[in-house]
């Protein structure tokens, strides 16, 4: 019987299995280039419109608002990045239900962790490319001095922070497994809540005290804090070490938690027959 197993078991490495999802998402991305263009235009318009608020504040107060411009620009760009990552990964179930492929994907001999790793790698790369493009286009609208920016610290915060954001997206993505009718909308609620509590357009200090509690458990708060520190204050990688440590801790807790929760939700969907159901 050994011949039976040898023939059927593929020789692909774990990394190759994950990369199959990256390749698929890239093919989908190319095929849906119109959507990508729409999101890029939306991202640019959103970034420019919100950052112009700082210019308006300067015009009204007559003060130098260059730091405020950078503060808002970083907020909108980080949010564009986080949204892209959250969208890409949290659609892990919903998109495949829509295409009708979910059963064929989930019955393949790929450990779920490698499946989600592939989705996360694509989500992060896609988010980075889109955000860099938005950033490049938005720069045409503002005269900003980047003399203070510590690039290494900025990149380190983005990369370490992305791990916990990916885990958060996986948690949001499992909702359609539990609630076929409303799961996708519930994922949007998770995103909207992050926007409110994480200090995207304002310091979290301005939140009501009870809401500030939630900002402490959002990894996005620390990502924004770290990037603003590195880009506005010129903080080095040593200066943002505390933020990096907190983000790493978030990742260490949230990654296993999200994998466990996704597996649990998948088992629940298989028990109740909700895996394929749309509504």
């Amino acid at each position: 019987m050994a011949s039976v197993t040898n023939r059927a078991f593929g020789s692909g490495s774990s990394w190759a299995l994950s990369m199959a999802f990256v390749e698929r998402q890239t093919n989908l991305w190319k095929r849906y280039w119109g959507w990508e263009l729409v999101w890029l235009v939306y991202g640019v318009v959103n970034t420019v419109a919100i950052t112009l608020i700082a210019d308006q504040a300067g015009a009204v107060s007559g003060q130098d608002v260059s730091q405020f411009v950078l503060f808002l620009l970083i907020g909108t760009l980080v949010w564009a990045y986080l949204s892209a990552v959250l969208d890409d990964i949290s659609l892990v179930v919903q998109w495949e239900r829509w295409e009708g492929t979910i059963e064929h994907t989930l019955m393949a001999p790929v450990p779920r962790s490698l499946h989600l790793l592939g989705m996360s790698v694509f989500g992060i790369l896609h988010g980075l490319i889109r955000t860099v493009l938005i950033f490049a286009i938005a720069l045409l609208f503002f005269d900003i001095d980047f003399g203070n920016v510590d690039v290494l610290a900025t990149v380190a915060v983005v990369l370490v922070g992305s791990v916990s954001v990916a885990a958060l997206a996986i948690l949001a993505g499992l909702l359609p497994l539990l609630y076929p009718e409303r799961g996708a909308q519930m994922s949007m609620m998770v995103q909207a809540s992050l926007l409110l509590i994480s200090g995207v357009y304002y310091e979290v200090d301005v939140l009501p005290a009870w809401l500030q509690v939630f900002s402490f458990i959002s990894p996005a708060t620390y990502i924004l804090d770290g990037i603003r520190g590195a880009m506005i204050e010129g903080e080095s990688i040593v200066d943002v070490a505390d933020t990096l440590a907190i983000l790493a801790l978030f990742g260490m807790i949230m990654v296993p938690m999200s994998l466990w929760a996704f597996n649990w939700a998948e088992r629940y969907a298989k028990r109740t027959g909700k895996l394929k159901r749309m509504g």
Partner: protein
Amino acid sequence: MNSIPLEVSELSKSFGGGRMFPWQEKKEPIKAVDNVSFQIKRGEIYGLIGANGSGKSTVVRMISTLLTPDAGSVRVFGFDIERDELEVRRLLNRVSPDPSFFKNMSALENLLFFARIYGMGSDEIKRKSFEILSRLDLGDRIREPMLHFSRGQQQKVAVARAFLTSPVMMLLDEPTTGLDPASKLEVQNFIREVRADHDATVLLTTHDMDEAERLCDRIAFLVNGRIVTEGTSLELRSQIANGRPVEEISMETVFLEITGKTIEEDEEVLVHG
């Protein structure tokens, strides 16, 4: 690993019946599969025949590890579908009644993805995809998006997807649904060929009696989630012959006399009843 490709024992599955909150009305669960048992021998094509809604696809989904049984067990070459999920998945593949593809991606891009997640390399996938699709008269359209394909052509690509990974246990859930007669025959011949060439064992579900007779070594009738009889086509005919020549008895007659209704009537009861 033992040598029996598929052992299904006392398998049952119900849907509904639960409630999320105490104030919600508790509904009666619907029994989709009721105490089903059968075994398939190596290299055999075993047919599960029943109307739409008789539980065929639920049985296939449980074997595919996509549904958890309420009771009973399923073993694929001795591997338990719940305990040894990943090993079972490596041994099987499936054709579902709806082709299920990423519609904007090309046939090749779809096949690349669905075979890469079975551990195959890109070069091997491209070579085999072209071979199989050429055999099914679609070789020249391999780079076209799936949405340009007719329903029948999509189903052929779905058959290609399933056989591409050379599974030792193949689950064909109404594989010729939506195909015109010529394509249906083509796919049926392909299934027979692959079974012979690749030593595959096949579970075929269908409500097409001719297809069952043409392809299956043994047949079971599934009615309301229960297997009511099982045997070779000759054995089933003999069960109801009562002195009539067996070759004159059609499988429709066998189904009618054993279950008390035609397969179409059974479907109507399920749709309207």
